[in-house]
């Protein structure tokens, strides 16, 4: 029974990674940049919910919507102010700028909210699920996390495949120049991608903080890196890849914490990433890019 419990917890953690990884992978696919500040957008999303729900006493669901709106605005602003001027510059320059933005968000949060750990109250107030006569208790937040992630994942796939904006995103990610010639507003499309990625980050932030109820300015940093690993694991740029990568990463992390060593769990996760990349250098679902001479 405990194995099943660990597995389910792993899937739940993995769904949060998957939500964050979706943001990474969409931005990477379309703007060809690693948005290192993505993890910190999660943290900001968590703080917004903390302030609005615990501080102002707004209904948690409304707080989540406020948080998503705030993160969307934040994501688009970051893109406009910091990343857009660097479009066409060396990828390394963009990477360092993203790191600068990450430091900036952390320090703004440090100044505004202080360095002390905030106890985040769970926004999911449904009863826990008891199976097999109480032998297996699944927390409601776990179930909600998994369901929310699946809905978002399906919705996002639909959005990218069927809507006009979604197809514009695919076109921009395949060939920016050609997309522009076909009359697609490249800058606008990239801004929309950032908006979607950041609002997903807000959802991920709320779910993460509900499952692990402590919030500091550095909360987003390690999950951000793990989600980035998950995105690479699944094949960066691929939406189903990010989802599978996230779930696998969460399950592996939780199972190795439970059965091997809690201190070595991160090392095990990273070792598996390395092995996967050595066998399949573009990740599980990544497409092989032909090299032209």
């Amino acid at each position, binding site marked *: 029974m405990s194995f099943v419990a660990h597995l389910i917890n792993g899937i739940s953690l993995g769904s949060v990674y998957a939500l964050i990884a979706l943001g990474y992978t969409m931005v990477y696919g379309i703007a060809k940049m690693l948005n290192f500040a993505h993890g910190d957008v999660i943290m900001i999303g968590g703080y917004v919910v903390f302030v609005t729900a615990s501080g102002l006493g707004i209904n948690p669901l409304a707080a989540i919507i406020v948080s998503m709106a705030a993160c969307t605005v934040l994501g688009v602003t970051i893109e406009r102010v910091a990343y857009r001027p*660097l479009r*066409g510059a060396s990828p390394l*320059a963009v990477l360092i700028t993203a*790191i600068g933005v990450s430091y900036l968000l952390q320090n703004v949060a440090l*100044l505004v909210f202080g360095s002390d750990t905030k106890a985040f109250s769970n926004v999911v107030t449904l009863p826990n699920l008891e199976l097999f006569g109480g032998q297996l208790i699944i927390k409601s937040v776990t179930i909600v996390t998994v369901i929310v992630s699946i809905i978002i994942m399906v919705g996002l796939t639909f959005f990218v495949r069927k809507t006009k904006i979604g197809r514009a995103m695919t076109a921009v990610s395949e060939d920016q120049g050609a997309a522009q010639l076909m009359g697609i507003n490249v800058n606008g499309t990239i801004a929309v991608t950032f908006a979607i990625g950041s609002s997903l980050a807000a959802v991920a932030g709320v779910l993460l903080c509900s499952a692990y109820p402590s919030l500091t300015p550095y909360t987003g940093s390690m999950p951000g890196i793990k989600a980035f690993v998950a995105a*690479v694991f699944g094949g960066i740029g691929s939406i189903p890849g990010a989802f599978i990568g996230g779930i696998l990463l969460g399950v592996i992390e939780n199972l190795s914490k439970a059965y091997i060593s809690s201190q070595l769990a991160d*090392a095990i996760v990273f*070792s598996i990433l390395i092995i996967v990349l050595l066998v399949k250098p573009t990740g599980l679902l990544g497409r092989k890019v032909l*090299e032209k001479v």
Partner: protein
Amino acid sequence: MDMEIKGNKAKLSKTTMNDLVTYEMVILTYIVVQILVSTGHVSSLIQGLLVPFCTYVIVAVALNLTVGILGELSLGHAGFMCVGAFASAVFSLAFKDALPGGLRFFLALLIGAAAAALVGFLVGIPVLRLRGDYLAIVTLAFGEIIKNIINVLYLGVDSKGVHFSMKDALSLHLEEDGVMLIKGAQGVTGTPNDSNFTVGVILILVTLFIVLNFIHSRTGRAVMSIRDNRIAAESVGINVTKYKLIAFTVSASLAGVAGVLYAHNLSTLNALPKNFGYNMSIMILVFVVLGGIGNIRGSIIAAVLLTLLPEVLRGLSDYRMLIYSIVLIVMMIFNWSPNAIFFRKRLKQKFLPGRKAAKEEA
């Protein structure tokens, strides 16, 4: 070099001149700092930072070899630093009383560099097959793995030999005369304090000598040709894997040297996310990119300035890291944005028309 022999004095080649300026800059800074210290113009805070300055300069130069000359992005250099630091700290602790200070530190340096080079070589074999962001994430993963393993490693020595365990101190089964060398997450304590500013500056000069000569050597040119066009380099018979591995191993080993310097400056050495985690690797990368990718002198200046900046801003207490991050973003946009580059060119043409021709020629 031929120019040097043929011509009279002051007829050195351009690259040699350029390198000499770099050495000179380091030596002059050293002299100025020493004068300031002896006249009491340097606060104890900054004095305590002198060895870390040297550490960051060395590791930034080492990383520039990977990023600028080899053209691959590594986010794992803190890991190599960590290997060098722990290997040398364990050695120094084990031979604390057996060897005289100078010799012990020299051997510790060799051991730290060799250990980091070995790990760099082993990491490099699989990693260098990957490209771009994949390579970056795998080096980051290796750096985290190294830090994680060191945090659960227990190492002790007694009359029966060396014991190690990855569980806890008790499972080492040490004899009564045994000495604990690495105590898991508590790290290494009691490393002799062999580092100082002079040693640091000497190590910077040695690092510069190695890196600059490497760049100008036949090997260095082969490495740079791979960076500029891998397929073209391969087609003229350059062994891509071999040269990539050479450059990566040298870079890792120099990062190990920085680790040795770091370890011998502290009495307690821990592998924390702060000093050997990916954040540190990223910080070193910031030095390299802000100093100019491939520009060794730039790395030195950036490493010193960016380490100094938060200390200078200390008066602003809570705002200092905020300002640091804004400065970082603004500088990146100013340096790299296509619009900003165009704007700077326009300004130059407007105010310095005489230099236009010379600039275009270069």
